[in-house]
């Protein structure tokens, strides 16, 4: 075990000593994160919910509704006509008070610009819904000021109306930002590129320079050598992840959901890439070819696997094609853990599929690992 650690740590040291390491592992992925993160975050940055209100009602309930909507966090502005430039506005129709007192159905229209801030929009929607409920409640208690007084006076209604609120299953309880998708996506892409490029080149060079043979001449065994090479590449994947997660948390308030599940996901995916890098380093013979193959594979799998955009937005054919990529299963796990707060039983299938990829890549690594040309 000591020799496996020793060989693995030395490989990691070789990567970190490279002058370009921080460019490839930090700056370059950051460019991707910034571009894709910005694309998937609403263009406007109105964190306080701007809301214009056009009240066409002349009765008391329209004004009451506006009074209830106007709350901290809502930047309310009353207007007399439909505005040309707006972020979101709500229209209370004519004869609103008259109609609801007659128990007629009423529609309240809320309009939002498509590029408006998602979080602020949700806040406005929630506030409008709360206000409608308050209005309905007020109508029920008919001037009794508050619902407790009403129920005290009319206990027969207590059992008739029961209001329970809860989030439906899989409701997104914390609204993820574009970066919550992009950072795991770029992390998956760069684990792949980083481990395949750096790990593959070192295996190839070690073979060509006679370093692998020389290691075997020591008392280290073949298994210790192979284990050390695997361990070094696993560490490379984990280091790449650590860098992006720390930066993501500091700069973009990255939300990883259940940390243990996310860590397991990164661990299995890195293990897959560690084996694949030993394989390509064993069968390819030049740095240029390894870089080309790794970048091409990394980018194709990133696109197919949903690293750049959520798989929910791609056609079904691409979803099926994407399944051939380990990136797809890693990203699926991240989505389920970060966005839908799913448990271990729901993500287990993803781990099983990733483990199958790991076994296939491990077979290739062991079968083709060459000590010398």
């Amino acid at each position, binding site marked *: 075990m*000591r*020799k496996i650690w*020793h*060989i693995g740590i*030395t490989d990691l*040291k*070789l990567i970190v*000593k*490279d002058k370009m390491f921080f460019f490839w592992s930090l700056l370059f992925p950051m460019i991707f994160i910034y571009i894709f993160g910005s694309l998937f975050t609403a263009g406007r940055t109105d964190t306080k919910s701007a809301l214009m209100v056009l009240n066409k009602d002349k009765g008391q309930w329209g004004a009451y509704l506006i009074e209830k909507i106007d709350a901290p966090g809502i930047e309310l502005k009353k207007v007399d006509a439909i505005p040309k430039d707006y972020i979101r506005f709500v229209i209370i129709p004519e004869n609103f008070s008259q109609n609801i007192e007659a128990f007629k159905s009423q529609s309240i229209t809320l309009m939002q610009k498509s590029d408006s801030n998602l979080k602020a929009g949700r806040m406005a929607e929630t506030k409008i819904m709360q206000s409608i409920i308050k209005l309905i409640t007020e109508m029920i208690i008919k001037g009794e000021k508050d619902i407790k007084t009403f129920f005290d006076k009319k206990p027969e209604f207590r059992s008739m109306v029961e209001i329970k609120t809860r989030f439906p299953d899989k409701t997104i309880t914390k609204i993820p930002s574009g970066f919550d998708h992009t950072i795991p996506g770029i992390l998956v892409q760069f684990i792949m590129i980083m481990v395949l490029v750096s790990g593959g080149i070192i295996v190839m060079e070690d073979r060509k*320079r*006679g*370093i692998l*043979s*020389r*290691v*075997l*001449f*020591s*008392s*280290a*065994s073949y298994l210790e050598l192979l284990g050390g090479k695997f361990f070094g590449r696993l560490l490379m994947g984990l280091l790449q992840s650590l860098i992006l997660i720390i930066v993501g948390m500091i700069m973009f308030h990255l939300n990883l959901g259940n940390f243990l599940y996310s860590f397991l996901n990164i661990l299995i995916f890195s293990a897959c890439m560690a084996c694949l890098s030993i394989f390509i380093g064993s069968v390819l013979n030049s740095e240029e070819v390894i870089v080309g193959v790794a970048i091409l594979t990394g980018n194709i799998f990133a696109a197919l696997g949903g690293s750049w955009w959520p798989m929910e937005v791609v056609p079904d054919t691409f979803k099926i094609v994407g399944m051939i990529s380990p990136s797809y299963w890693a990203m699926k796990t991240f989505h389920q853990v970060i966005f839908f707060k799913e448990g271990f039983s729901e993500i287990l299938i993803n781990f099983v599929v990733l483990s199958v990829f790991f076994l296939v890549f491990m077979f290739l690594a062991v079968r083709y690992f060459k*000590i*010398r040309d």
Partner: protein
Amino acid sequence: MEKKILEIKNLTKTYGELTALNSFSLSLEKGEILGLLGPNGAGKTTMISILSGIVKDFSGTVTFKNENLFSNRELKNYMGIVPQDMAFYEDLNAMENLMFWGGLYNLPNSTLKKRAAQLLELVELGTRAKEPIKNFSGGMKRRLNIAIGLIHNPELLLLDEPTVGIDVQAKVNILDIIKNVGEQGTAVIFTTHQLAEVEQICSRIVIMDKGTLLAQGTMDELIRIVGGKEMVDVEGEFSANHFSEIIKNQNHQGIEILSVSDNLANLAFDNTDLIPSMMEQLFKNQIVVSDLKIKSPNLEAVFLKLTGRSLRD
């Protein structure tokens, strides 16, 4: 105390039709520096590769410290190898390389650091320990390659052509280091095709060609193979066949053709008095001789005598 450290018996290795080693036997004592001399393709590297465990599927036995070398991995802790390749990490500095290679031998870190520092002094890289190896000259890299082979203080050191591709001064340094290692009690097997190198540092020399051991012994023992003859190299404008014919037809007693090719012949003379009569025959047969060198018997002559060809062929 048992002095013999290594015994190779009937080592044979074939690659398809080609026999790289043919029933090769050899033994080595502690502190002995053995020069394995042979041209390219003689089987020197194959033998080193077998001893280092890289080449498998061979027949014969190798006993190291009274045990089968290949049945006990721990024996490798007592052997060091210096391959022909610069097999180390150019992105690490000399000290880091020694720490990596030494770490494979389960040496405690403190011992390893001390040993690495000593070795860097020995190979005259003490002041360059923390410099990137990329900046090293060929000779410095060769010296580091040797230091790596010695990091775990082995009892047997195998060096595969350690002086290839370096300048004369660097060669001298490396030969001094090897000599020093031998003097400290480490047995050394040193392959080369440079006659001067084995003459300079080896206590025993093995001459091999085409996978076969042709002769072995000390320098004096080997030279006795060519007897008290004088070596004469003849250069001129002639074909190999024509030259051989003239010498044979004249039935010169006391002249032996060691090797002959177009424009160059290596001859062994019982007596240099025979040279004028040979020259006369050559002129009569319209052969122009441009150069004639008389040399004392040396390893090259031994090699020519044994193989019929020069080491440089």
